[in-house]
């Protein structure tokens, strides 16, 4: 059934309430079941042997001794897996990343796996697997990888016909940069670097896999997208999609890192080989070394402006380190670079580069924070050079409804200008600063996506409602979707229970990524509820014995309307549900859709820092997030997304980074030396939700989960630079880097 998805401006009764989340009590009491909390009779422990070389040829793998260890039921190498060399390039890369074939491509790359009855037998067997390597030269730095004569990560990768580590080149923009620069009164050229960071989710990857002799399998897994995991695993292992049932566990954070398979195909393959259930749980070290962090980058920016603050030309090239397989990170970054501004001449180049580091995965608004660091840092300096207030400078160039965006589309109603105005008018902007303190602000953009979704809504005999959706709840979506169902049906929030269905209970649902969960499942829920209402109206008509068109649905009950029947007492949802068996059977609504029209989102942040000039240590004193949410269905969880994104951005800006040694091995694969902010490192992060409705959603919803990780690198960079009087151009701005910048500037 086709439904109109236009924004209607309806008034809400329950949407917007700060209700308790349905999964909260289970999570704080330990009843919630995460990836590692499932067990099956006779299950084995699966462990992976990983490379400690950055780059080497695998000459030989001898598993004979490991196979003889008591308790070992299966030993697996790439020889046990399909050879996808001549198939789909993406599937090939994914499988080779899960288990190396001829070469190991980074420190931590899987080379073999074992399934045994207990952990110590499995460990013993791992130690007895003998791998003969022939070491190859490696490269881990994005700039080094592009130099002439750099070791080749993938010898078959070519650029302009020649072997190269450059694996992708994407350009976006319009106008004429050279002409624009000629019009400028001032041109700034700057270069920046950002280091590689990890999403840092608390829950490591974990799964339980079984495969029966008939070839049908089940996978319990912590994931952002069990339907996508099913497709990937089936494709990699040659299984039928319909015969693999994937159930998503509760998820202890993903932020993009759980959109991709790492150990799951290995667990299934071990289960298939051993004919026993296999459970695998990554250690933290494995998570850092062998799941998918985000890219390190290096970039050059050039902006020209007139004295009045009009930008005449804007150019950026940013090089992204993808790990050993080509990605689309440069493309995503390139699309976002200038999206906040209305520019006559702009160009963004995103370059993808192969290096001997883990295969990169999405990380919250993937690729956008780095470009924003380059863009917003340079804009800040330009404003200063022109003696224009940085917010005012941005407002003079801001994108509006009708602006042709730097990546192509013409914008509908958007929120960048309102976020900047809110920043300008915020009391935070006028708070006093002391010695060694500085303030910075920056803006950011993220697309958000829609995609395939389907939901089921079933009315129980007692008038309570089960909503089943296929988008994994990573940030409170069950609460928001229950609110939406309650709103449509006209019942209370408590009457609705939302579940995440497994892959056998619903049609395909795309992964929870691109801030799509509440946008797309919310849309499917609205229409599924409306379908159920039609059913209930018809049942009420039957119960009354009147024509269906004389029934209306209002406030959770069927009402007979018109002169003839208007005096009949209303029938509540509960009363209609109680009679369902006699009036035609179960009452349900269903909807499937490829949800188009996800609204883009914008955020602007303000941040105050204090820098100790003798140690280079930065303390974040105050932080304010302003972001457009379209419509905040559950304001608490919208604020939580803003705060969480800002917190991750602050960690990235100040201390988080992958540190590689000369040997190409990762030196800080643990939370002790990979420094995410702890609670006491952060101030309470203030939030301001703006609601500029998305015209393409009945409730005006836009995605909210990602956008606020985009501004922090630049907001903090601008604040630190203002505090110390020297520009910081390398993220993270760790204490040694800040002291060095001060030294270099002779301060």
């Amino acid at each position, binding site marked *: 059934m086709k439904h109109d998805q236009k924004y209607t401006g309806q008034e809400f009764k329950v949407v917007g309430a700060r209700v308790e989340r349905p999964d909260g009590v289970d999570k704080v009491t330990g009843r919630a079941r995460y990836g590692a909390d499932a067990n099956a009779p006779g299950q084995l422990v699966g462990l992976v042997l990983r490379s400690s070389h950055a780059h080497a040829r695998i000459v030989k793998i001898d598993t004979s001794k490991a196979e003889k260890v008591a308790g070992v039921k299966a030993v697996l190498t790439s020889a046990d897996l399909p050879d996808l060399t001549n198939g789909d390039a993406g599937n090939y890369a994914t499988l080779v990343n899960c288990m190396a074939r001829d070469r190991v491509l980074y420190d931590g790359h899987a080379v073999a796996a074992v399934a045994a009855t207990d952990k110590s037998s499995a460990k013993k067997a791992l130690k007895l697997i003998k791998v003969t390597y022939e070491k190859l030269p490696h490269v881990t730095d994005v700039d080094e990888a592009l130099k002439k004569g750099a070791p080749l990560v993938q010898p078959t990768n070519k650029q302009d016909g020649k072997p190269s580590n450059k694996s992708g080149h994407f350009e976006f923009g319009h106008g004429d940069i050279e002409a624009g620069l000629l019009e400028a009164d001032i041109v700034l050229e700057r270069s920046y670097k950002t280091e590689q960071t990890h999403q840092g989710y608390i829950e490591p990857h974990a799964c339980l896999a079984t495969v029966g002799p008939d070839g049908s399998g089940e996978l319990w897994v912590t994931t952002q997208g069990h339907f996508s995991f099913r497709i990937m695993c089936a494709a990699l292992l040659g299984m039928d999609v319909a015969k693999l049932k994937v159930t998503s566990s509760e998820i202890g954070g993903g932020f993009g890192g759980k959109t991709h398979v790492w150990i799951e195909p290995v667990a299934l393959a071990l289960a298939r080989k051993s004919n026993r259930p296999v459970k695998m749980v990554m250690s933290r070290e494995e998570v850092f070394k062998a799941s998918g962090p985000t890219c390190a980058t290096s970039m050059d920016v050039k902006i020209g402006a007139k004295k009045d603050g009009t930008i005449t030309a804007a150019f950026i090239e940013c090089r992204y380190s993808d790990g050993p397989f080509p990605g689309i990170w440069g493309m995503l970054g390139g699309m976002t670079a200038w999206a906040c501004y209305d520019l006559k001449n702009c160009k963004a180049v995103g370059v993808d580069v192969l290096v001997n580091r883990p295969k990169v995965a999405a990380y919250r608004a993937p690729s956008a924070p780095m470009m924003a660091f380059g863009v917003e840092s340079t804009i800040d300096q330009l404003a200063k050079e022109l003696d224009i207030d940085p917010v005012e400078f941005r407002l003079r160039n801001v994108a509006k409804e009708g602006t042709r965006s730097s990546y192509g589309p013409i914008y509908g109603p958007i929120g960048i200008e309102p976020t900047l105005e809110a920043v300008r008018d915020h009391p935070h902007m006028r708070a006093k600063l002391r010695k060694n303190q500085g303030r910075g602000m920056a803006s950011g953009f993220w697309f958000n996506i829609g995609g395939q979704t389907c939901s089921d809504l079933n009315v129980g005999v007692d008038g309570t409602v089960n909503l089943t959706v296929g988008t994994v709840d990573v940030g409170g979506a069950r609460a928001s979707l229950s609110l939406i169902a309650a709103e449509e049906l006209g019942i209370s929030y408590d009457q609705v229970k939302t579940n995440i269905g497994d892959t056998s209970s619903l049609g395909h649902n795309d992964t929870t990524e691109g801030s799509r969960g509440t946008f797309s499942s919310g849309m499917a829920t609205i229409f599924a509820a409306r379908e159920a209402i039609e059913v209930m109206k018809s049942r009420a008509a039957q119960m009354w014995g009147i024509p269906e068109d004389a029934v209306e649905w209002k406030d959770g009950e069927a009402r007979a309307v018109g002169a003839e029947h208007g005096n009949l007492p209303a029938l509540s949802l509960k009363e209609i549900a109680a009679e369902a068996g006699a009036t035609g059977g179960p009452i349900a609504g269903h909807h499937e859709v490829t949800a188009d029209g996800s609204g883009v989102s914008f955020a602007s942040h303000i941040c105050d820092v204090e820098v100790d000039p003798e140690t280079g240590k930065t303390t974040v004193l105050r932080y304010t997030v302003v972001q457009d949410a379209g419509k905040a269905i559950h304001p608490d969880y919208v604020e939580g997304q803003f705060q969480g994104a800002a917190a991750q951005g602050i960690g990235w800006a100040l*201390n988080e980074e992958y540190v590689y040694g000369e040997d190409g091995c990762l030196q800080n694969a643990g939370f002790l030396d990979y420094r995410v902010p*702890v609670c006491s490192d952060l101030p309470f992060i203030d939030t301001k939700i703006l609601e500029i409705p998305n015209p393409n959603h009945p409730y005006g919803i836009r995605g909210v989960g990602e956008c606020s990780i985009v501004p922090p690198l630049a907001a903090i960079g601008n604040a630190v630079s203002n505090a110390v009087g020297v520009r910081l151009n390398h993220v993270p701005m760790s204490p040694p880097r800040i002291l060095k910048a001060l030294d270099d500037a002779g301060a």
Partner: protein
Amino acid sequence: MRYESPKTTKEAVTLLSKEKGKTFVLAGGTDLLVKLRMDMIEPDLMIDIKRIPAMNEINKTATGFKIGAAVSGRQLGASKALAKAWPGVVEATNLIGSDQIQGRCTMVGNLCNASPAADSVPAMIAAGAKAVVVGKAKRRAVAVENIVTGPGQTSLAKGEIIEAITLPKRPAKSGDAYLRFIPRTEMDIAVVGVAVSLTCKRGVIDSARVSLGAVAPTPLLVKEAAAAIIGTKLDKEALENLAAACSAACNPIDDKRGTVEYRVRVAGVLAKRAANIAFERAGGKK
């Protein structure tokens, strides 16, 4: 692996010397259990000392304080007398980890784990603390600076155990302080640690000890640094000399936690700050 929890030091020492395989003393376990889980050690025998009553006590003695080897950071922090006499030692120990870690971690564990970056160790060295080492045959008092011989290495012989730490009696007009640099606010390992202990006479520093952590393979007792401030009122010049002596004593490595350049420089910065605090605590006026 065998686990034993004896009731006396003597019993513990006997168990340790009898065992042929690898033995480990278990205090709070905040280093040991982490290593066990990470497969870094494979003990044959683990001796838990937390059930030894004498090792759980803090006693004021004729010569100062005696702190049992199993006393946790939290217990230490609750002792008013200690906090008054040796605020720097208590602060340094209370910096270890978090609330959860404080409930278990010990100074002796911190010392015997022999990390160059251990927080309580420079403070103990500056304080002139001694370890009461008990072996099968004899018991000896060893200056804390002589326990750690290298990263993960101590001068304890097989079968030896530390029963307690002693801190000397505090003369009037004394003060100590410990400062560490970490990029975060907690749950981190010192990039640099500096402890200063001093005693004033007639407003002038009469004696002092300065110790550095995380800037060399072992915590250092830096005599030149102490010499730089003895006989002064901690004027600007004395502070600069102190900083220079501390920086000169550093022999650090470049690693994921900090560069050589950075550590050397910040050692001097922190030394000045720690000395100022210790001086103020000693009632010193500039």
